[in-house]
């Protein structure tokens, strides 16, 4: 299973989105907790510092130094900073060597890193005493910083873990639906290849895939039933009408042999028309046979160059008599697995059609540039050889191209020409039987029909 396909599934995308939203929510929650607690702790420290500074500055100036010494002695854990500096900034007492430059007397509290005299980060405030000396009171904020670190790393790790877990869940959830989708895809491909009896598997979970498969199966059931009815009707009509028509034709033949000579041309005309109906029925039956035929039966290694040469030999005289310039090329032996007789028939039908329509278009034209032209060529593209029949006849308008391959279709151009038969439909049925492709394109002007002799890529 491809990773790319997996990443494209709806389940995966949804899971990834959930993971992202959850991670964002988690980060905001922890961030809020962090902010609130950090601000609270800082404010508390600042409050304590202010109280202590006020208490010290309230004592008589001569006693301040002594009070500082007492406070430092009492602070057994060495958590506090107390220091007194002279007007010129020299330390008079306490555990701080100098006033940090960012600390302003009577200004807001600041945080400093560890110093030589106090080995921990500290939060300090300074007060100018009435004597002009500066009192600095501080408190160790190592715990506060540690807590901040803990919360920040918790944010990074938990957010990352949530996103990773979300992605993993996305992949895990997507694999199973994707696998089922592949099974459905394969089944659909088989249906498209002509197996109308194939149905999509239903897991029994009654989920959306099951609902979809059930709908497709119902539709396919209807399609199969309708196809069966159409096919059955075609066969019945063709078969039931063929017998009386054949008898009528035989009676006409007898009449012609023994009847009045003046009536002979008329009888011949009726016979020709009956023949046309019979040929049409025969072609319809033939398409039905081809469609119901077991694939691959009678397939042998076939040289397409030989086949093309054979068709060219058979049709060159017809092209000449129809006033159509005909040429063909088949470079070298190109072998494919095919039923040679059927492929010959398919190519013959394409060439026959091209000559017939092109010949009819240019009938009566005299100028040399007004000549019908039909080209039959075999090209050996690697893996997918093509047999192309190109003409400069009337062509087929794009909207009609897929319709002409169906058995009941008669295009605008067919009405002008007698006995046009169902050549393209038969060719199309043969090509489908081989799992080859029949392409109809514009030759500008004219039609370019190509049989691509290779397995169609999905």
């Amino acid at each position, binding site marked *: 299973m491809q990773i790319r396909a997996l990443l494209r599934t709806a389940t995966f995308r949804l899971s990834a989105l959930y993971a992202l939203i959850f991670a964002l929510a988690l980060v905001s929650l922890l961030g809020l907790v962090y902010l609130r607690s950090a601000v609270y702790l800082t404010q508390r420290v600042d409050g304590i510092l202010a109280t202590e500074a006020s208490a010290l500055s309230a004592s008589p100036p001569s006693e301040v130094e002594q009070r500082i010494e007492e406070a430092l002695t009492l602070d057994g854990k060495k958590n506090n900073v107390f220091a007194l500096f002279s007007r010129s900034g020299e330390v008079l007492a306490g555990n701080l060597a100098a006033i940090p430059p960012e600390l302003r007397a009577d200004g807001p509290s600041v945080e400093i890193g560890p110093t030589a005299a106090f080995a921990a980060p500290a939060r300090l405030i300074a007060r100018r005493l009435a004597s002009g000396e500066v009192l600095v009171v501080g408190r160790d904020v190592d715990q506060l910083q540690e807590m901040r670190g803990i919360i920040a790393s918790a944010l990074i790790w938990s957010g990352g873990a949530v996103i990773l877990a979300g992605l993993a869940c996305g992949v895990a959830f997507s694999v199973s639906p994707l696998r089922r989708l592949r099974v459905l895809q394969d089944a659909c491909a088989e249906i498209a290849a002509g197996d109308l009896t194939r149905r999509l598997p239903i897991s029994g979970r009654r989920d959306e895939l099951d609902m979809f498969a059930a709908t497709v199966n119902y539709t396919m059931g209807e399609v199969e039933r309708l196809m069966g009815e159409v096919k059955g009707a075609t066969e019945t009509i063709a078969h039931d009408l063929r017998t009386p028509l054949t008898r009528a034709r035989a009676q006409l033949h007898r009449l012609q042999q023994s009847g009045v000579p003046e009536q002979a041309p008329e009888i011949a005309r009726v016979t020709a028309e009956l023949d046309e109906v019979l040929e049409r029925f025969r072609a319809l039956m033939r398409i039905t*046979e081809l469609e119901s035929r077991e694939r691959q039966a*009678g397939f042998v290694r076939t040289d397409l160059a030989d086949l093309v040469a054979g068709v060219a030999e058979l049709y060159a005289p*017809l092209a000449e008599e129809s006033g159509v310039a005909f040429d063909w090329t088949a470079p070298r032996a190109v072998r494919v697995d095919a039923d040679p007789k059927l492929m010959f028939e398919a190519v013959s039908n394409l060439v026959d059609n091209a000559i017939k329509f092109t010949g009819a278009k240019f009938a009566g034209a005299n100028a040399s540039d007004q000549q019908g032209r039909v080209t039959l060529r075999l090209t050996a593209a690697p893996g997918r050889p093509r047999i192309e029949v190109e003409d400069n006849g009337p062509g087929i308008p794009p909207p009609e191209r897929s319709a002409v391959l169906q058995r009941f279709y008669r295009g605008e151009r067919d009405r002008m020409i007698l006995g046009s038969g169902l050549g393209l439909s038969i060719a199309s049925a043969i090509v489908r039987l081989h799992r080859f492709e029949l392409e109809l394109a514009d030759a500008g002007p004219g039609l370019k029909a190509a049989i691509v002799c290779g397995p169609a890529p999905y």
Partner: protein
Amino acid sequence: MARILVIEDDAATATEIAACLTAGGFEPELRFDGESGLEAATEGGFDAITLDRMLPGCDGLEVLRRLREAACEAPVLMLSALGDVDARVTGLRAGGDDYMVKPFAPDELVARLEVILRRHRQAVRPELRLKVADLELDLVRREAERGGRRIELLPMEFKLLEFMMRNAGQTLSRRIIFEQVWEYYFDPGTNLIDVHVGRLRRKIDVGDAKALFRTERGVGYLLNAD
């Protein structure tokens, strides 16, 4: 008069076949199932057999196989309502000489019987040279000559002329010609065979020589024997 054994289970169809065989100058004899058909055929005396592909109790192909095992060499024309593409191939492979899909025109049945009868007779006594009026075909040197004049023929034209000469006097439909000469079994279209026969005809019937080719309107072509 050639005797034809008709093995056909459907009485109406059998009568119809018998009627058109009689009209075509044959002497038909009817059998309605595989076993009695096989019995009649092995007793001998028939020039050709028409055999239905689907018989009660015994498949037409099986009858054909047992006929060939019993060394019955009479040519067999298989008749079938099955139009399957492969049915013809299996029928011919099992030893049938020709294969016709029902329904068929009576003259088509007669023509096909004539063709296989003639081919059978010629197979027994192979000829090296065919002759129709003043037209001669040397099968060894692969040369055609009319009234001492050499006629250049393409390989397919030679094959077509050989087939028409072997069946001279017999009206041949376009379909029979296409199947027997080109050995393809699809509808060749209305004028494809006309064109090929026409070209051959222009090479053979030259100048004021007596015309050998004759077009039978709505049916096919005939090479005049007399």
